């Protein structure tokens, strides 16, 4: 079952294309890692996939059984969040907002969902702590719990381990792999990363972009051959 299909997608800023003619698809249960150097257009691509930017040309199609408000997103930290007074529970709950529609307050089911997701990510004991006082790893878990409140179908992660120490990084990768596991519901993952070693270890598929175009699109196993071939 295909979740997301990109057809000849061109994305960029201010009328300037950063990445052109991109075609790929993500199936349910896939773990896709988008690799590329700084400025190669990874973040622009993700913002376009999230419909925060409109594509310059080409199209993004949502596959069967996925609508626009069933996307979970783990963004990079913003400046605003560094001194934002918010408890972990408030942040996680805000992920449920897309199910509220015009209803002004959260219902029991949504509060329950937020509690479950906090439990799943091991941050229940932090629920009343202030978000800005947490460690980087704890903050990322909080944002991941929020993303899970928005959906269980597909998660888009923008460098989820940026700024984390090696232990927290390893924990984060394990957590994400756990969510992708079929036994836990098999959430599809699209992740932006610099970290080639971990991408090859955890991801099922890899997309390499650079110099404004797609350089590689295939499974992780094929990617190691591709890299090996390029080296020799």
């Amino acid at each position, binding site marked *: 079952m295909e979740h997301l299909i990109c057809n000849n997608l061109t994305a960029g800023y201010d009328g300037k294309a950063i990445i052109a003619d991109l075609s790929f698809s993500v199936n349910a249960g896939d773990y896709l890692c988008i690799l590329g150097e700084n400025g190669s257009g990874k973040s622009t691509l993700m913002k376009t996939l999230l419909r925060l930017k409109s594509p310059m040309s080409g199209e993004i199609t949502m596959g069967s059984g996925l609508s626009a408000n069933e996307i*979970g997103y783990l963004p990079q930290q*913003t400046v*605003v969040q560094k001194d934002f007074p918010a408890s972990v529970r408030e942040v996680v709950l805000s992920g449920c907002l897309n199910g509220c529609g015009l209803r002004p307050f959260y219902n029991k089911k949504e509060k329950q969902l937020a509690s479950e997701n906090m439990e799943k990510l091991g941050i229940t004991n932090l629920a009343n702590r202030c978000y800005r006082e947490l460690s980087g790893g704890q903050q990322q878990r909080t944002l991941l719990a929020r993303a899970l409140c928005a959906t269980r179908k597909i998660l888009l992660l923008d460098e989820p381990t940026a700024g984390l120490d090696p232990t927290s990084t390893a924990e984060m990768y394990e957590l994400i792999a756990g969510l992708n596991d079929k036994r836990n519901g098999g959430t599809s993952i699209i992740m932006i990363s610099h970290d080639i070693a971990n991408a090859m270890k955890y991801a099922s598929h890899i997309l390499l972009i650079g110099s404004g175009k797609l350089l590689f699109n295939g499974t992780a196993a094929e990617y190691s051959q591709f890299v090996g071939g390029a080296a020799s």
Partner: protein
Amino acid sequence: MTFGERIDQLIYLFNNFDFARYALLVGVLIAFCSSLLGVTLVLRRLSFIGSGLSHVSFGSTTIVAAIAMIIGVESFQNNFFFVLPITILCSIWLLLSGPNSKIKGDSALAMLSVGSLAVGYLFMNIFPKSANVAADICTVLFGSTAILTLGSKQWLVWLCVGLSVLVSAMFLLFYNKIFAITFDEDFASATGIKAKTYNAILAIIIAVIIVLAMNLVGALLVSALVVFPALTAMRVFKSFKAVTICSVIVSVFCSTIGILLSAMYDNLPLGSVIVAVNLAVFILFAFAGLAARRKKA
């Protein structure tokens, strides 16, 4: 006069004069509304929006007055309904131009603020309404200097009551959405929240409150009422809900004390007293927050 006599005078004033009661009502309502919106504005790095928008409304007031003078319309007093739409447009522009815009929030605000103040002053000098331009400017910046003038514009008082009810209702209804788009606008948009629509609604509410407040308490006080209560509450409290509730309480408390003090002592100008009380409470909370953190560590 002793302190006791001054208290007696205060009671006499509020028992016998409508304008005093109106002044208190208006002061408290404006403090209430501006502190509700203050938390999200401070967190979005738009603390100075109060000042900026009130300068815009000042600038447009003088331009409207000049045009009225040129085309020969006499007694063009009621320019409120011309000034408000212009201010709303500027407010929407500021709130919708997110972190990705070419001119960032703070510099856009500074540009707007200084620009409209200068244009306003220019027009005021070219087409003087009264002989004393400096005094007119002073009123714009500091608002009513005495409690008497604050409660004397009756139609503004009732408009203020109506809008306060509206603002509180909107804030309550959109509370969770305001939190989500303030904390992380991209996430909210990506998961299907109409962040731009909510931002525009917020911008309209802010502009209305600020134009109203500027007419009653002046440009400087508007900024103070937006910034101080939110910052004060953030010294001590850690969740968005607690910060919002605390900033409302602090704001209403400080404004009440300020208005009463100004009514008791003739030489205390209203706006400055309210700001001074806010500053004192901020320092108190800053120490309390510091002490709490020390204790924890």
